[in-house]
């Protein structure tokens, strides 16, 4: 349970024929409990890929499927963590996390147990009664992750989830996410433009071209991580110092830089 498949997917924005082609022949398979990150230049359509799995946008051609079933609409089997958190500001932390469970018509006693577990998992127990505006950005994103995790979704879709956070908070959240992914592995599609983040978190990294976005290459990170035993190190900066990490990071950077080509940067 929990595989994602892009099969010959195109996406055109605007009228057919004269519209802008955003994605061109995307083919990608994400296996059960695999963590795949997509990196690419801004505007390459990586977020559109995630939005199609979420069911927010239909593909213009080809199919996007989860567990072999074509995606037609959003649903709690595909939980999304948004860059701008997208919490409900009029609901407390507890109510935000609980809404998806109420939608599943779970009885109160069961909901309470699950919410308590999610609060504990994300270290939010002391903030259960707070409103989102009373929390820092990092805390708000913890709530959003808890809201997604509590649904026990088959796939977790994360759209630059740490992009709006300051550098220190981002590092803490990345370490936390690695902890979660190891303790409670599930299928994750993670969108980012931060190369180091992708290498640190993912099992595989897919690199996209400039618009119209295509998948240029897919790098296997997991085999290197396991061979070099990155997980023995607790801190992200120690992992980032490893020669194997630096090598992968440089490889992705070079690949992305070719994309930026004539435009420099």
């Amino acid at each position, binding site marked *: 349970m929990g595989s994602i498949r892009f099969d010959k997917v195109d996406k055109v924005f605007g009228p057919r024929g004269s519209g802008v082609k955003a994605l061109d022949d995307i083919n990608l398979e994400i296996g059960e409990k695999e963590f795949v990150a997509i990196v690419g230049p801004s505007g390459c359509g990586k977020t559109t890929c995630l939005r199609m799995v*979420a*069911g*927010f946008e239909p593909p213009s051609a080809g199919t996007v499927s989860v567990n072999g079933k074509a995606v037609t*609409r*959003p*649903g*709690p089997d*595909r*939980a*999304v963590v*948004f860059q*701008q958190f*997208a*919490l*409900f*500001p*009029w*609901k407390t932390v507890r109510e935000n996390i609980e*809404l*998806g469970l*109420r*939608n*599943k018509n779970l009885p109160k006693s069961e909901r309470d147990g699950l919410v308590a577990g999610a609060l504990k998992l994300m270290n939010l127990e002391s903030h259960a009664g707070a*409103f*989102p*505006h009373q929390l820092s950005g990092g805390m708000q994103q913890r709530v959003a992750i808890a*809201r997604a995790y509590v*649904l026990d979704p088959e796939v977790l879709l994360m759209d630059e989830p740490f992009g709006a956070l300051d550098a220190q908070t981002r590092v803490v959240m990345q370490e936390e996410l690695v902890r979660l992914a190891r303790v409670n592995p599930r299928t994750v599609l993670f969108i980012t433009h931060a190369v180091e983040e992708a290498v640190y978190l993912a099992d595989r990294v897919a690199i996209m071209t400039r618009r119209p976005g295509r998948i240029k290459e897919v790098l296997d990170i997991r085999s290197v991580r396991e061979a070099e035993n990155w997980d023995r190190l607790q801190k992200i900066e120690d992992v980032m110092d490893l020669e194997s990490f630096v090598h992968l990071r440089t490889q992705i950077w070079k690949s992305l830089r070719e994309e930026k080509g004539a435009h420099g940067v």
Partner: protein
Amino acid sequence: MIGRRGWVSLASVAAMLLLWFVVTTATGLVSPGRFPSPADFWQSLSQIATRGYAGGALANHAFHSLRLVVLGFLVAIATGVPLGLWMGWSRRAEAAINPIFLIIRPIPPLAWIPLAILWLGLGDAAKIMVIWFAAFVPSVINSFAGVRSIDRPIIEAARMLGTPRWRLISEVIAPAASPMIFTGLRLSLQAAWTTLVAAELVGALVGIGFVLNMAQQDIYPGMILVGMVTVGVLGWATTMLLGRVERRALAWNVAGRD
């Protein structure tokens, strides 16, 4: 409890009262036949408060007017807010309703008075209807704009969580639009008070509008001012009350507060 700005406001009110006293009483720049002096005002106020005027005491007239405004306002928001939310949510509803709305909207609420009387007679129902029409428009427009201004990720998050339609409206759309809805309610309340006196000028036997009408016929400037000030005070008090409800309902909305 009174801050610096509170003192400025108090001083401003005091200055206005002083100016009033100076031009009408101390210097006689304005004759009492044109604008009543504070003493005239006080005398009129005590007359209507104790012995009554135009068939009743001030409390009777005020209560009657207040009742009309509150009823008209409640009917207006009970119909206007849902309609605005629906038009905001459904492009099809907008396409169907907006053209009609755009034609009806420029008609002044008071222009409905003849029809209202024809339909409902000279009683309270016709007046409530006119107030309803006046208060309806701002509720619709602001609720509509409130829905259209909701950040897309908020709605996407709710749909991703599998929120069923009714809960989406009651727990996501309506609260997300509520800062704008309350702006609409304030404007609706204002419109209700603005329309009240005109609605009561026609065929009323009680109410502040009737007091104003009688005072005009009696050429009684002091009583005219009493009627006007009563509307002002009642309007202010109901607006304060609504503001209190708003602050409580929108406690989560830190950006919308001073």
